């Protein structure tokens, strides 16, 4: 990855710290200092980058596991297939919708929740701990909860609740697959956003707020003029970290919709998985994997820059 980031992202200079021409002892000293971090670094790079190089190699071959021995070099034709594949484009679009929808809604709810939890009330710490629970539920289990008890057409709670106000039952996962997936994801991710925003709220200087209050600012005004700008960094961080993880969402889609109906809720990770493990089309799946990695690097470069800006502002 190091080489990739360097080519895609201008800020960090050369990737691998190659020995600069320096005095022999200084160099040895330098390597001795770096020694503690070598095992972790080398391992991480081997465990992710060698498989990725293999992925790149696969992507240049036509290889279907259904026909053993069918492997042969085809150059870039898999990539041509990927970019002319309608489903791939839809999956890319779905990925953007799911990620954007989930992160923004979860953040909006998270800010609201954090404001609630920041107030003093009886049982505050208990409620705070309880609020984190959705984030602690294993994603697969969370998705199963939504599938079996929240969104089930016959017994689901959501249908029961909308039935109380006279709306007919909806078969959520087949009629509104993207909404269902985003709903489950938002539920899982709101506590994460809440925790970050709450940390931001609690790091806010009380004196500024009191001064504003003395000056006669109302609660709404105070929130918009003081709290929100202060929270910006935390909100950015939450959106970025959330997006990084939600982009790779797989569990919820596998459990809730299987990418369906048709390909209506297929996102890129699920589509790649489908091509590789259900279609056995290794070459094609690998080509999509490479495209996704490149896309991630491009998006992440911006994300990383913002993160570093956030960090450098802090110190």
């Amino acid at each position: 990855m190091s080489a990739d980031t360097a080519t895609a992202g201008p800020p960090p200079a050369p990737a691998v710290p190659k020995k600069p021409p320096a005095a022999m002892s200084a160099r040895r000293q330098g390597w001795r200092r770096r020694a503690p971090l070598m095992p972790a670094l080398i391992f991480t790079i081997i465990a992710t980058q060698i498989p990725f190089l293999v992925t790149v190699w696969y992507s240049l071959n036509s290889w279907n596991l259904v026909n053993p021995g069918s492997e042969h070099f085809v150059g870039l034709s898999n990539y041509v297939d990927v970019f002319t594949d309608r489903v791939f484009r839809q999956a890319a679009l779905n990925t953007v919708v799911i990620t954007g929808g989930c992160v923004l809604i979860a953040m909006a709810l998270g800010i609201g929740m954090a404001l609630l939890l920041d107030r003093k009330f009886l049982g505050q710490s208990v409620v705070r701990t309880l609020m984190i629970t959705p984030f602690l539920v294993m994603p697969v289990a969370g998705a199963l909860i939504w599938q079996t008890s929240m969104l089930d057409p016959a017994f689901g709670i959501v249908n029961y609740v909308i039935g109380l106000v006279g709306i007919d039952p909806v078969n959520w996962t087949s009629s509104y697959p993207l909404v269902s997936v985003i709903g489950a994801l938002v539920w899982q991710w709101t506590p994460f956003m809440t925790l970050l925003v709450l940390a931001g709220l609690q790091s806010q200087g009380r004196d500024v707020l009191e001064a504003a209050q003395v000056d006669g600012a109302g609660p709404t005004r105070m929130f918009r003029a003081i709290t929100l700008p202060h929270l910006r960094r935390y909100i950015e961080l939450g959106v970025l970290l959330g997006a990084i993880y939600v982009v790779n969402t797989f569990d919820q889609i596998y459990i809730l919709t299987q990418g369906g109906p048709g390909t209506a809720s297929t996102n890129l990770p699920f589509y790649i998985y489908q091509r590789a493990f259900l279609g056995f089309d290794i070459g094609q799946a690998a080509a999509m994997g490479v495209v996704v990695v490149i896309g991630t690097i491009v998006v992440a470069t911006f994300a990383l820059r913002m993160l570093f800006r956030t960090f450098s502002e802090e110190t």
Partner: protein
Amino acid sequence: MDEGKVSRRDRSLWWIAGVVVIAYALFPVAWIVSVSFKTPSDLGSNRFLPTTWVWENYENILAGGAQDLFLSALRNSVGISLLATFISVVLATFAAYAIARLDFPGKRVILTTALAVAIFPVISIVTPLFNLWRNIGLYDTWPGLIIPYLSLTLPISIWTLSAFFRQIPWELEQAAQVDGATTWQAFRKVIVPLATPGVFTTAILSFFIAWNDFVYGISLTSTEAARPVPAALAFFTGASQFVDPAGAIAAAAVVVTIPVVVLVLLFQRRIVSGLTQGAVKG
């Protein structure tokens, strides 16, 4: 904010908002707990509480028909996640120590690399791992999952631990060295106690990532030999066509959520004690 100035109407609005929010976050969890105690005939009803509370679902997954699927998966998940966490925290501690403490060029590149690897789309390396593991015999084994889990947990561990380590008052270490301690002694006797809360947080995070993984879990395993809980849970739905699996799933979901909740509670206490210790000594 001044409580006295908040009008009664405002206060009741806050209360309503609070109740709605708590219901939204907790209702699904409460519902699943309740379902896990229901009898099969009770599952279809919209009643929140079971008509009769039974342990049937728990017996089913822990001692009954579904135990082959669930118990082995639980054993695999606990073992694999703990091993991956342990290895990753040990390696990351050294790495983060070097990053926070020692001066050398390329530090930022290493942190960037760690973060870049952390956001690397897992799905794009699953296929080669699948093929490779089948060729070298790691497919459907513990190491076959521990290795990819380490690639998930290590970058995050390095990242969070270096953030923690940067806040440690390192003058203490120098003081110890002036008093005649070696670098290693200063590290072990002075820094480790201060760093423990951070290490624990990192360990929880690592465990959490490994414990929750699903993509590797279903792609790189095929039998009870290594299949972890998330993958087994997904098979609950497919396997039982004739019995409504909701009760068993609910019980399993409760059982696998408990360790994480316990860990987080444990870690909260750790963090607090770490902070107070620091305050007393500082």
